[in-house]
């Protein structure tokens, strides 16, 4: 059997970018959260905030590190596996990615050093500035990368001459029709991710009765945030879908599992789409609802997969189910937010065990929703690489053989499996140690950190307790 470099490269790209995406979605939200904590602590001087920010900074460091190394891989993927695509779209993608590096990555990297290591080397205000800069960097970064990605879905502002895209309008190309939706949807997704992870971890500490005051504060904050963000995300997702209906009708047909263009199209709660037979099995429909959602009219016409020939259709099953996973989890998030509100009114949100338990579980769901969302978007674009202009097969590196692609695919899987397992392990350790002073129970096995511990006087008076807290837990137990 011949190995197909196209399939292997697609799997490889999907694998490395999904792996990469897990980390930024978390760090974008978390960076803003840390900047917020630093700002509040700067203003109020209440040590609780500083303890929280020191703790989350330690978590951030691990996640950010993995985001960086997997991102470096991404910046070479276009050249190694998709060189024809890179050649064709360089006039647009090159400047986008370069702007991302010079406006975002340098900013993040420089101020990250100060955020992580500089707490006692710079004044407090400068440390706060570093936190704000890192958070700003993550947003600038998503701006450019999503402009690049949206352009692949809804290319605009370019002309194809002799196989090369030439930009005729930078503003049309950057602010292409799907960009605003994608940027907003992804931004909210990142904040939701941050909020759910922080609330899950705080809930866990509350269940074990650890650091109740600080964790209660953090949880309360996150629940308010989720209450606003989760419904907004659903509304925004609806607009995003309408935009897709306008520009990529076939993708919407795949999301809905709709084979024939027509009116009164039902919303399918369950179905098994069958590419070969061009139909669904085991449908559980709600009559006309898809028409209503997509056209705001019971009788509205919804596009079907029959709009295009078979070889221009995306793999329907994947798009269909990934879409349901994302929307299902989105609705679940809204339900959790409302439950939190009810419990808050009763004053019990921080001491209702079943609720705290479910928050723990919920902390994984945003990651699943984000990946599902990306799979909808990206798989739904197949077989196009640049929608309507260039196919995946045209974009592939000509000299790439199946064997080479398989070698690196396996290589990345092995490397990432090792790194990911280790990362998760250390992350769980950071979480386990938590906000408490590490040196009590953990100093014994940490020969490297004696100095800072030595600075901590053993008998606390009220005033040096303050001072100690202000210098931050991040400096004490080490990291």
């Amino acid at each position, binding site marked *: 059997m011949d190995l197909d470099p196209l399939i292997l490269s697609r799997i490889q790209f999907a694998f490395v970018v999904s792996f990469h995406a897990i980390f930024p979605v978390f760090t974008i939200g978390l960076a803003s959260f840390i900047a917020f904590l630093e700002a509040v602590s700067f203003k109020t001087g209440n040590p609780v905030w500083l303890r929280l920010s020191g703790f989350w900074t330690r978590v951030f460091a691990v996640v950010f590190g993995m985001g960086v*190394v997997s991102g470096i891989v991404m910046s070479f993927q276009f050249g190694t596996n998709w060189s024809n695509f890179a050649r064709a779209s360089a006039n647009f993608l*090159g400047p986008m990615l*370069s702007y991302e590096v*010079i406006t975002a990555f340098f900013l993040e990297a420089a101020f990250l050093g100060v955020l992580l290591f500089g707490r006692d080397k710079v004044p407090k205000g400068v440390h706060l500035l570093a936190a704000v800069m890192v958070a700003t960097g993550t947003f600038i970064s998503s701006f450019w990368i999503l402009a690049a990605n949206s352009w692949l879905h809804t290319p605009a502002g370019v002309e194809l001459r002799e196989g090369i895209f030439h930009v005729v309008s930078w503003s049309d190309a950057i602010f292409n029709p799907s960009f605003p939706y994608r940027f907003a949807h992804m931004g909210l997704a990142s904040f939701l991710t941050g909020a759910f992870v922080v609330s899950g971890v705080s809930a866990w500490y509350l269940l074990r009765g650890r650091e109740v005051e600080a964790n209660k504060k953090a949880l309360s904050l996150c629940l308010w945030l989720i209450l606003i963000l989760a419904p907004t995300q659903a509304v925004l997702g609806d607009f995003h879908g309408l935009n897709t209906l306008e520009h990529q009708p076939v993708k919407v047909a795949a999301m809905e599992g709709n084979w024939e263009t027509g009116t009164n199209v039902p919303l399918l709660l369950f179905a098994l789409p069958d590419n070969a037979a061009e139909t669904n099995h085991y449908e559980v429909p709600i009559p006309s609802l898809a028409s209503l959602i997509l056209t705001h009219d019971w009788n509205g016409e919804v596009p079907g997969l029959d709009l295009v020939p078979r070889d221009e259709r995306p793999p329907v099953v994947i798009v269909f189910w990934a879409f349901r996973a994302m929307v299902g989890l989105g609705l679940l998030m809204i339900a959790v937010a409302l439950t939190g509100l009810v419990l808050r009114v009763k004053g019990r949100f921080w001491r209702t065990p079943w609720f705290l338990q479910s928050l723990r579980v919920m902390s994984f769901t945003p990651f699943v929703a984000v990946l599902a969302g990306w799979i909808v978007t990206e798989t739904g674009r197949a077989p196009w690489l640049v929608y309507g202009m260039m196919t995946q097969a045209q974009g592939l590196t000509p000299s790439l053989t199946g064997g080479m692609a398989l070698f690196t695919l396996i290589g*990345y899987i092995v490397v990432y499996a090792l790194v990911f397992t280790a990362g998760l392990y250390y992350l769980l350790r950071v979480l386990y140690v938590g906000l408490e002073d590490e040196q009590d129970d953990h100093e014994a096995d940490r020969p490297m950190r004696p100095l800072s511990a030595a600075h901590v006087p053993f008998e606390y008076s009220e005033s040096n307790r303050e001072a100690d807290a202000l210098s931050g837990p991040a400096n004490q137990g080490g990291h």
Partner: protein
Amino acid sequence: MQPFDLVLIWAFIIGFGIIMYVLMDGFDLGLGILFPFAPDDQARDVMMNSVAPVWDGNETWLVLGGAGLLAAFPLVYTIVLPALYIGVFLMLAGLIFRGVAFEFRFKANTSRYLWDWAFAGGSTVAAFAQGVVVGAYIQGFETANGVYVGGALDWLTPFTVLTGFGLMAGYALLGATWLILKSEGYIQAWAYRITLPLLFTVLAVFGAVSVWTPFIDEMVRDRWFSSLGVIWILPLLGLGCAFQIFRSVRHRFEGMPFVATMGLFIFTYLGLLVSRWPYVVPPDYTLWDAASAYDSQLFLLLGLLFVIPIVLIYTAWTYWVFRGKVRAGEGYH
């Protein structure tokens, strides 16, 4: 429509970005290469802590190199990366392991030694792979109609293996002289001790590469031996730097060895550039063949001219924040 020749400006910018990367990531990769040979664990802590706050920024120059090539000279990006497919993967795998080692090592206790190895192994592999890229670039690439048509392992030749080891030795030298600057006591003494042997290794390998290169390609031979006499100034300046390293180590100067090593790198690099100028994808394509559209080069240039000075300022500022000696047990984070 095209009042300036942006191609030359871009050649300068990309050239600047690459040497920035080589110098900045060079010393932290070099520390990784030296890691297994450090006198003890305390020395390893100092070595790692001396670069922990800045390595991410150093590596960002590599990302800029990749993205900048795509933007300004896409043909380089789309020929060199497929040609070096396997080598690039090895380099990235190396960079992954050494990058996460910074974070994980801080948090490990019993598994610490694993991350010591990840850091050392990852740095060594990445440095070797980058040296191979240099060698492959001198060798040239087999192309047709703007795409690479050679095989998967064409890049792997005795010559590229030699340049791989050459860059490893060079990075180790940068690492050792950086450590002289950032450490004190027995660690600094060790760094002084290894600097001269490393210097001689570097000179030997660079010398071998220089002798070998003209035989690989006629154009290079012609350039050095018939047409352009003035360029001999570059290797001479390089040798001057080498002598300066030698002298300053003798006199136990702390900053000069590092500065002179950077000089050695810069002049070698310039020598390499003039050998192949104006070919960016030897032997077939010049800078002008490889350039992207004028509009794209202009669009990025406008932002770049504005932003890069700011980047340089705050990068310098972070180095300044973390200036001075790194002491054992001074746990950051």
